[in-house]
């Protein structure tokens, strides 16, 4: 695939996030966004005057607002500036990052601000998602990003008990991470000793997919400021460089046309990872990357996807989970932030992956900073209809 035709390098120089929460009645949408924008400007030591372009994103119609970027100028600061709205579903946050990188790399703008947000308390998420597929074939059955079939796959391959325990181990690791992240929405304080209880008591949604294994429904916003190489070096002490990103999608496999074991639904991750790592000469991604912020909407998908992203074989991915190698301090820390299961303001979620990965590279993520130095970080985004976006971040400009 054609790539690496970047006109110039781009670095992340400012990051701001709200506290993610189930309820933010005290602010309306632009006011919520404004909190993240102000924090990112503070982080970058810039004012709105320094921003050349604003890239705005959320889930289309999730708050029942058409063209929210116009109204949100009250909070984004885009008054009188170039502003672009992006909506690519769950990946929107990751696409915001890709677009901002491209806009700055192209030379069109020197400093670009990406803003992802969602106020899921306000909208009608299921209403929005339900309308995405072909209305002729009973689209109401596609009730959002449910992952029951993945649970079935893992269970069939590794046995019910092992599958369930791996899923819950992953869940508790995410909770332990979320407990360290002051911005995380759900941080319960779960313990590994509760695995059996949770398997028994958590309400089942589809097959073995349980409520505790699903992502949260959050209000929150994230703002990331991107700058061209020259500006990034001038303005930031530790810019985080964007090495490469890839977007892969295939719509026709969506479950609406039935489940076919021979053509598994989600293989965009695997394809994207192979392409991205291949063109960057990375043979062993598990060793190359120091941290991975993965878009993990549910534990079953998360444990299954590790195999796709890192080109693992057999049960290597389950062992990573079972041996807690994905915990902070482990071999491949996954989501020190607590991940999507911890906080999911959807339009911001995938941008938070990039932001959190960048914070890890900068080394000032806060209480959930991993203890070993981070030189290479990976972030992924996921969404319907079957999109994968992957972003590679680097501490040094030396690739």
């Amino acid at each position, binding site marked *: 695939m054609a790539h690496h035709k970047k006109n110039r390098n781009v670095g992340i120089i400012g990051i701001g996030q709200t506290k993610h929460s189930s309820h933010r009645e005290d602010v309306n949408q*632009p006011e919520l966004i404004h909190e993240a924008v102000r924090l990112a400007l503070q982080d970058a030591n810039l004012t709105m005057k320094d921003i050349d372009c604003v890239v705005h994103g959320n889930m289309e119609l999730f708050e029942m607002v058409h063209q929210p970027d116009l109204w949100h100028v009250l909070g984004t*600061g885009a008054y009188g500036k170039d502003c672009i709205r992006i909506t690519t579903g769950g990946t929107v946050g990751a696409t915001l990052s890709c677009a901002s990188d491209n806009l700055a790399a192209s030379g069109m703008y020197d400093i670009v601000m990406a803003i992802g947000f969602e106020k899921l308390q306000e909208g009608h998420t299921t209403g929005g998602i339900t309308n995405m597929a072909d209305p002729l074939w009973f689209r109401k059955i596609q009730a959002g990003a449910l992952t029951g079939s993945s649970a079935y796959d893992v269970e069939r391959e590794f046995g019910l008990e092992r599958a369930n325990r791996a899923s819950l181990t992953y869940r508790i690791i995410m909770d332990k991470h979320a407990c360290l992240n002051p911005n995380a929405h759900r941080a319960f304080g779960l313990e590994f000793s509760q695995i059996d209880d949770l398997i028994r008591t958590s309400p089942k949604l589809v097959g073995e997919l349980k409520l505790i294994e699903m992502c949260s429904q959050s209000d929150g916003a994230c703002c990331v400021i991107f700058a061209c190489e020259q500006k990034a070096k001038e303005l930031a002490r530790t810019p985080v460089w964007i090495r490469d990103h890839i977007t892969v999608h295939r719509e026709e496999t969506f479950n609406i046309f039935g489940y076919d074991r021979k053509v598994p639904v989600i293989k965009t991750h695997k394809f994207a990872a192979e392409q991205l790592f291949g063109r960057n000469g990375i043979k062993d991604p598990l060793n190359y990357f120091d941290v991975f912020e993965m878009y993990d909407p549910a534990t079953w998908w998360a444990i299954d996807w590790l195999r796709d992203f890192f080109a693992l074989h057999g049960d290597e991915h389950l062992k990573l989970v079972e041996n807690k190698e994905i915990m902070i301090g482990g071999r491949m820390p996954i989501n020190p932030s607590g991940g999507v299961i911890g906080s999911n303001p959807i339009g911001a979620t995938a941008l938070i992956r990039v932001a959190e990965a960048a914070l890890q590279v900068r080394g000032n993520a806060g209480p959930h900073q991993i203890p070993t130095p981070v030189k290479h970080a990976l972030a992924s985004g996921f969404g319907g209809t079957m999109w994968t976006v992957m972003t590679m971040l680097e501490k040094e400009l030396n690739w």
Partner: protein
Amino acid sequence: MAKEQVAGFEDSYEVEGKMALPYTYFAGRVGSKFITTIRDQQKIMGVKCPACNTVYLPPRQVCDKDFTDIRDNWVELNNTGTVTTFTVVRYDDRHLPRPAPYVLALIQLDGAGTPFMHIVEECKIEDVKIGMKVEAVFAKETTNTILDIDHFKPAPEKISIHALNTARKQWNPADEPATNEKRKGGKPDMATPVIIAAALTGAATMKNQNPSVPYTPEEFAEEAWKCWQAGAAMVHVHAREDGGMATHDHGRIKATHDAIKDRCPELIVNLSSAVGMGKTAEQRISQIVAIKPEMASLNTNTMNFGIVERKTGKIFIDYVFENTFTMLQDFSRAMEENGVKPEIECYDMGGLDNTLLIARQGIFSDPMNFNFVWGVAGGQAFRAESFIAMMNALPPRANFTTCGVGTDEFPCIMQSCLLGGHMRVGLEDNIRMPDGRLARGSYELVEVAVSIASALGRPVATATEARLIMGMKPR
């Protein structure tokens, strides 16, 4: 649901869809306060950006032009405004607030910098015009939305007092002898224009009593301008610090005086020589000499000047307001020598007599201008016969105006207007309208005075006429 097939498309059909999605919208703190203030107090509030002075309506947390945090900078706006543009909705739909046809307009409220959308009703659609004046009609039942203002209706075009004044014959000093002639027979001269003064602050009225009390020079200028628009020829001013304390600081008083003059060059500014409690004689008069306003208050006797609860008689603040004969003499002389016309404040007949006594030294230039003050705790309460007694004790050619504290304000100004005298109103004396609600500002009390004058058929004096009547130099 399949629809009937259209000719030429018999082999295919269309599927009808329907969406009815409940959703929630969080108004946030700023939006909530905006609506609840309309709902509970029938007041429309905007927020003002201190950096660019834009008044936003509907309000918002942040000025989107300069990113200033403005969430706490509330200002009250008028219920009247202007249609800046409009459309006619000509189709019916369930989500629309009215059956078609109806007018949806952008309305810029008086005092606001941005227009907002609302319905215009109570007039023919053909009569709606860009630039027409409209007035908010509040909903009887709340929906906790912007429809707590039910709609806007056409507002009567207020004929500006200034337009009325331009149209009539102007008063000139040649009319004065006739006035005095009438007075001798006890007949008031209703032809003399009535001077309306607005006392914007005093030393004691605070924003927590009425948020329209100005503190900063900019607020003074804004209030003064509104009062001038409403018909006042003069404002009486006690300068305040930002925190609201009355100040004798020359710089601050001058800044306040100049801000008003910059905004309304025609208006007469009358500065207080009382300033506030506990000021020395030097602090009280030096600022008048330094700034030389056209007029200044002159207090005429040492008296109790306290705060006493009217219903119970309980004393809150006990204070003696010192104005010795020496001070009266020195202040009068300082004013006259500096071209400042004294407004002689009489809190009872004794004060008037004190002045007449000192006047024998020949200090005062003619005509003298007296203000009968009623209802101070320490001075006399308003009584119609006391008013007449004081009026009859005035020297020839003297003018009189009057002001009253609290509910004394309206009867005393009405009596003064009736007897050919002048009127002072304002938040210094009284914070409420005749119906008991808080006045939106001194200007609303000026409007009451104007309505009294027009009920009696008396013209309202322009600033130029007021100068001539009170014997000031033309500006």
